[in-house]
């Protein structure tokens, strides 16, 4: 069963199906979308009009500006009178930071595991790949639920869950690449010239693996944002009163019939960020590694 998993298969895909383009419009749009959100989140304290956590009951459920609201609260206010834009910006800091850290950890762990599995002995390889199988047999959300049930909800636990859900992709990709690259003539030549294992890995294998890693990382960022907001939505991620996109959505659900903007604004934000990361990932893939198409 293992060998039929799609990650391996896509790497072995035959002739390229997509063509290189000089400038990839989706990647540029995606990159801009992401950059804009990241910038807005970083500048959240400067940009937000009000405190994202402190309730202001006199201004409860104000509609967005232009739809009966005031320019003071461009996206309206929530059930506790907190400015939605301020909460989105501050929530972005948390969501994006969690997602980035998780992607980095997942990539680091995955790359190391992939290198060790690919260049170590058969038993090490078998051990790590079985571990990857086990990991894949549980839906990520279920895995997250199991972990949250054990360690409770904290940002560190969230990062742990997210990173744990992500390392397999890198490990499999890196391993597959190591196995192919290792047999290439120039690597054998380097061996013959007396290069150490570490040097081979650093000089020949890693640079050749960078493209797929970038592609996976970018697409995975989208998955991480979705997962984090999904967990927060279920009440297993960021806890109130901290703003988080998923949590805002969950809170807005109770006001659907009289204040639709509560759930709409964070949902749109999540979608845009995820869309941006997906577009960037797809674009990078077309650009860097047509084989993965």
């Amino acid at each position, binding site marked *: 069963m293992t060998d039929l998993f799609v990650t391996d298969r896509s790497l072995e895909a035959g002739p390229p199906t997509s063509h290189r383009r000089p400038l990839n419009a989706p990647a540029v749009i995606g990159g801009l979308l992401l950059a804009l959100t990241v910038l807005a989140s970083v500048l959240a304290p400067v940009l937000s009009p009000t405190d994202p956590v402190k309730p202001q009951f006199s201004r409860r459920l104000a509609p967005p500006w232009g739809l009966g609201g005031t320019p003071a609260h461009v996206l309206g206010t929530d059930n506790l009178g907190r400015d939605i834009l301020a909460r989105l910006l501050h929530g972005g800091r948390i969501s994006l930071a969690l997602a980035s850290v998780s992607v980095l950890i997942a990539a680091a762990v995955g790359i190391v595991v992939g290198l060790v599995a690919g260049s170590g002995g058969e038993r090490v390889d078998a051990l790590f790949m079985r571990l990857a199988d086990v990991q894949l047999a549980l839906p990520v959300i*279920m895995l997250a639920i199991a972990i949250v049930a054990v360690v409770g909800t904290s940002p560190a636990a969230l990062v742990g869950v997210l990173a744990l859900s992500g390392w397999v992709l890198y490990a499999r990709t890196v391993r597959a690449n190591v196995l192919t690259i290792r047999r290439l003539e120039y690597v054998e030549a380097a061996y013959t010239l007396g290069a150490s294992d570490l040097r081979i890995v650093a000089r020949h294998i890693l640079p050749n693996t960078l493209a797929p890693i970038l592609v996976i990382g970018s697409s995975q960022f*989208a998955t991480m944002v979705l997962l984090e907001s999904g967990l927060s939505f279920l*009440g297993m991620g960021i806890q109130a009163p901290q703003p988080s996109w998923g949590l805002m959505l969950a809170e807005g659900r109770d006001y659907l019939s009289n204040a639709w903007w509560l759930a709409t604004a964070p*949902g749109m934000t*999540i979608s845009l960020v995820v869309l941006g990361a997906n577009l960037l990932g797809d674009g990078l893939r077309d650009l860097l590694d047509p084989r993965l198409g």
Partner: protein
Amino acid sequence: MFVVLRVLPGDPAKMLLPEGAPQSAVDELNRHLGLREPLHVQYAIFIRSVFRGDFGQSFQYRAPALRVVTERLAATAQLALAAMFLTGAVGVSLGIVAAVRRGTRYDVASTLFAVLGQSLPNFWLGIMLILLFGVALRWLPTSGFESWRHLILPAVTLAAFPTALVARLTRSSMLEILGRDYIRTGRAKGLAERAVVLRHALRNAAVPVLTVLGLQVGTLLGGAVITESVFAWPGMGKLVVDAIFFRDFPVVQTVLIFSATIFVLINLLVDLLYTVIDPRIRYS
């Protein structure tokens, strides 16, 4: 079954660690799993009781966890099957249309749909569907589990992401196959385009698509957790979310074991299906 067995070991022991767990819970599991024994003995005992069908008692429902979970299984199965059907039917058709009409507006529309489907969080999509069809238009019920009309919104919500994935994969898989020599041969000998696409290309493109469909069972089971919570669908997903907040570990554990088992079994089935679709694949 090997993989299932490997999935199990961590869970029973791990479930006991939280400090917030009530003493009764710890005692119950302690007694039940014999936690003072060394780990491998515990594991053996646990496996033995699971194979006897003993998954422990639910704290929340005061009933065997196995029964609590199986009672909810049908609702989740119904939802997942409906979503799976949508994914297969809509995803594969969209992919075929996009590949056959490559570069036309059908292709663009299908690709756009796929990108959107992969970017909209399903909990938000669910809420927006409720807002549109439930609150604004009042066409469909927004929660509960009574008639087929209740199934529509949750199934669409759950299917969106895997449908998008399958559409994209079918497209790229079909494009690759459509460029092969034997397709040209087929056309050259005067086969109808429909026969070329459906009999020759689709069948060869089916293996990766089927693989991903099988893997989507995991996505569906995971997505069901969120979708069922949004639509108050009384399935395994909603059960497990509630169980976490009640610290009802036997139920959480049973649901996890069930979902892993279902996932592995379906993918085994998919592996076996390969041989039917592609006779070149043989398992010795």
